[in-house]
């Protein structure tokens, strides 16, 4: 039975993290990997080109060596190895998984914050501090989104948890109570 993407990604990420940690290059590796992910995200055709049959092996190798340019030793090796083993399709998943494990290691959280209006600097800081306290984190990375339909308040997604403090949800809840009684 073939392994699913998540299992594969978990194994590669774990190996990379252990290696980078031993060499004290975690921070640099992490930064390089997120910029690599940006490359994949900015060029949606790249993955399918590497994965598909439209390019010859030689052309693909050329693309890979372009990707490796400027990368540190570990990241370059990772790219090469993932490509050689035919798992380039799982690259983004590996990076996601790496980030997740790295977050757990340094107590960092990624939070998606949905608000009705753009957060200002003060609120942003308050939000970060509140989340850091709640989730016992040292660092909070906010991904802000604006959605006027929630009327007010905020919805925060952290990992598998959702904190919903939006006015819309509260109104719905009140409506449910009034209609059901």
């Amino acid at each position, binding site marked *: 039975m073939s392994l*699913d993407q*998540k*299992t594969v990604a978990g194994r590669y990420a774990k190996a990379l993290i252990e290696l980078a940690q031993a060499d004290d290059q975690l921070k640099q590796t992490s930064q390089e990997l997120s910029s690599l992910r940006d490359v994949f995200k900015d060029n949606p055709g790249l993955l399918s080109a590497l994965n598909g049959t439209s390019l010859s092996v030689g052309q693909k190798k050329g693309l890979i060596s372009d990707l490796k340019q400027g990368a540190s030793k570990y990241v370059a090796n990772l790219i090469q190895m993932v490509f050689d083993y035919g798992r380039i399709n799982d690259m983004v998943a590996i990076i996601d998984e790496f980030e997740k494990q790295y977050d757990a290691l340094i107590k960092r959280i990624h939070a998606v914050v949905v608000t009705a209006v753009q957060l200002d600097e003060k609120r942003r800081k308050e939000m970060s501090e509140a989340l850091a306290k709640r989730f016992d984190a040292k660092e909070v990375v906010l991904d802000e989104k604006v959605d006027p339909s929630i009327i007010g308040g905020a919805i925060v*997604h952290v*990992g*598998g*948890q*959702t*904190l*919903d*403090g939006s006015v819309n*949800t*509260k109104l719905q*809840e*009140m409506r449910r*109570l*009034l209609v059901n*009684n």
Partner: protein
Amino acid sequence: MSIKTEEISSLIKKQLANYEDSISVQETGTVTYVGDGVARADGLENAMAGELLEFSNGVYGMAQNLESNNVGIVVLGDFTGIREGDTVKRTGRIMEVPVGDQLLGRVVDPLGRPLDGLGEIKTDKTRPIEHKAPDVMERKSVSVPVQTGIKVIDALVPIGRGQRELIIGDRKTGKTSIALDTIINQKNQNMICVYVAIGQKESTVKASVETLRKYGALDYTIVVSASASNPAPLLYIAPYAGAAMGEEFMYNGKDVLIVYDDLSKQADAYRELSLILRRPPGREAYPGDIFYTHSRLLERAARLSDDLGGGSMTALPIIQTQAGDVSAYIPTNVISITDGQIFLDADSFYAGQRPAIDAGTSVSRVGGDAQIKAMKKVAGTLRLDIASYNELASFAQFGSDLDSETQARLARGQRTMEVLKQGLHEPQPVEQQVVTLYALSHSYLDNVPVDDIQRFESELANYMRANHQDLYDQIKSTGKLPEGDSLDKAISDFKETFKTSDQKKSEKADEASDNSDDSEDANN
């Protein structure tokens, strides 16, 4: 009229008293696969097995497979509205159904939602659909009978309150009819009935409901229906939901009769969703825990001890066989779980022997204790009579020269089989059954022509009701045969007045000739 602002606001305040202004914290996951009534979701790391989950479009699901990277969810409703990438949230609850008196007389789906268009069901109680069966110390042995009103069952395979008796047979052999007749006969017997229809056609369910309504049986019955058009997960949970509804009454000290019609369809539904959940298939492609699926359901039928109120739940599971093959996987499983089976035979059904119960293979392992004394007495030799008749009948086909003893046994056998025939939806009270079988076993029927047996039986019942109701009452209240020869006397008195068809015919012919004589006289 002016609007009373204060009154209104105080009302609203009261209704909102439960509202708390807090941030809702929920665990969510993302749907990665959906199809065929099953969804998989990433995340939801803390989900429990069997937990109720809510999809973003309001459809509920039940967590079935907890794997390292995802959760396999069976969708309890329309899965076509769910898309990959939707969120699923935990509810922290185990699947529950509404229970209570308000459900009586209603037709509901396995989630307890009304299907009969009679409006909302307002119950204040719910029960989890999966519930641990009562353990050894919480039970009591079966001692009170369930009167099915069907002669052959009450005489040969008696069922006790708290027993599990399997009804098994090919398609179209009258399995459902036996179950429905039993429900119909529970009128005024202090019994609450639950009829769980699994994977049946909507029209069939409708017909069954109308039958129950026609005989006034719906007032004490709950019908749970997961029809053939419902997705497999609903068919799978239907019997558990029905059991939960029945249990509520059982734990309140009442007697419950629950019919699962039928468990082969439930097994098929469970096989379907297990295969889609990619559980390894076993024999006949059923999953490994198919036995447990049925055993944990049927174990919930029980007779509770007096400490727990002495209630009971009698289960009548139904299994459909293919071409009479009882050694297939599901039939053998359920036979081994239940306390006996009523086996319906297609051949005798088509030969006109209805209900087509095979007396040789049908047994009740505990019901004998629950039979009333009078019935035990009159039915004692019945099984033997039928067995020896069947044996002789096949021999008798070859030769015509039979000694008188054999002929007598054949005659008795034919009459026994005739007595055991019974019409659809015509359940009989136990005292009537006892008198009929008494007449049979005490040779009152031996010289009645076979064709007249059924008429004899019904006329005897009418005669007894008209002239000897005291004997009926006596049997019913004491459970014993009347002392002395009062019953013998009543039956022989009736037999004096009974005219066979031949006698009637010849009388009619005489009368006709008399009449013609008269008219001739008049003309002259």
